[in-house]
């Protein structure tokens, strides 16, 4: 993934984009290099699946132990905000997938716009999450020993919120990291480093971003709808 002197070819659409790219010497061809990069990202995604999988397992165990508490506690999550966040992330997945597509077609300006849109949608997601968290703090719906809310029949609602904050928190950190990476991609794209010959970082990030969306696709019904 090397790039020489990109400044000479900054932001020119079409053939001039991505001129700095050349295949690393240990790969037989550009196709092999791309396949190796993609496979590497998929292996990384496996570790991410196992990370969130461990948290889902904890959720499953605690839900089986304290089923009534979980059902009672989950009603205190705002499912409208959760549903809106789901739509926001699905739209961000679309804009990211289209960004990869426009990079494949060497449309540098469109790629920048689409990455920018994805960043904007992530901001919306985090803003809604912020509002949700703020509401939880205000009501005392906090993890474990910090749980101070009144009016609960069961005594283990704190465990539900521990799981809730842990899972949405780590998911939110992944979104933040994604935004940082997108800013990096945006800078590189605006310097003209990507084209149909070389768009591997955008595609790789796209895979990561879709996985973040996938995790939320499971988080939303399990936490907000089923409890």
């Amino acid at each position, binding site marked *: 993934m090397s790039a*020489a002197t990109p400044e000479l070819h900054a932001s020119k659409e079409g053939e001039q984009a991505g001129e700095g*790219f*050349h*295949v690393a*010497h240990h*790969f*037989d*061809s*550009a*196709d092999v*290099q*791309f*396949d190796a990069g*993609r*496979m590497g990202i*998929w*292996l990384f*995604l*496996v570790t991410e*699946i*196992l990370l969130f*999988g*461990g948290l*889902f*397992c904890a959720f*499953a*165990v605690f839900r*089986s*132990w304290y089923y009534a508490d979980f059902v009672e506690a989950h009603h205190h999550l705002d*499912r409208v905000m959760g*549903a809106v966040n*789901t*739509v926001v992330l*699905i*739209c961000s*997945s*679309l804009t*990211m*997938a*289209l960004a990869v*597509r426009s990079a*494949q*077609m060497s449309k540098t300006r469109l790629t920048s716009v689409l990455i920018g849109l994805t960043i904007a949608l992530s901001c919306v997601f985090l803003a809604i999450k912020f509002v949700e968290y703020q509401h939880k703090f205000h009501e005392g719906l906090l993890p474990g020993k910090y749980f101070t809310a009144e009016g609960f029949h069961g005594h283990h609602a704190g465990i539900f919120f521990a799981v809730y904050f842990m899972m949405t928190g780590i998911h939110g950190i992944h979104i933040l990291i994604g935004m940082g990476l997108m800013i990096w991609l945006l800078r590189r794209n605006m310097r003209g480093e990507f084209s*149909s*010959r*070389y*768009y591997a970082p955008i595609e790789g990030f*796209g*895979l990561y971003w*879709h*996985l973040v*969306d*996938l995790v939320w*696709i*499971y988080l*939303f*019904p*399990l936490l907000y*709808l*089923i409890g």
Partner: protein
Amino acid sequence: MDAHAHAPAHGKDHVPHVLPLSTYLKTWGALLVLTAVTVGASYVNFGAANLWIALLIASVKAATVALVFMHLYYDHKFHAVIFGVSLIFLAIFIIFTMFDTEARGRADGIERERPADIKAPFAGTAAERAIKEKHAAPKPTGEAAHAP
């Protein structure tokens, strides 16, 4: 390191496999519809199946994202194998943990009624030992004569 300054030394350029815009838009539409189904289904109470129906709909959405947005359908099958295998291992992880935790406490009643002595686990309870001795009592002298 910069011996290969120009790409032609390594053969042809990568030609991207570009999907039509309509594919992306249709997938996006399907995901939005499935989200509506997810929310709608949560208002119907299927009892114990609530969890499984929610997981099923979520899995359909996940498969759509994975196959189209993540290009798994159009990519080398090996990438799909990698992804699929991780899901299998995750399933084993969760299922076996649930087997264990759901079965906890099942032995408690039995242990209360028939507590086992660690030093002689197969000796049975006091009542069982009494019965065994009662039936074994007439024989000892006969067996001692034939002992090797």
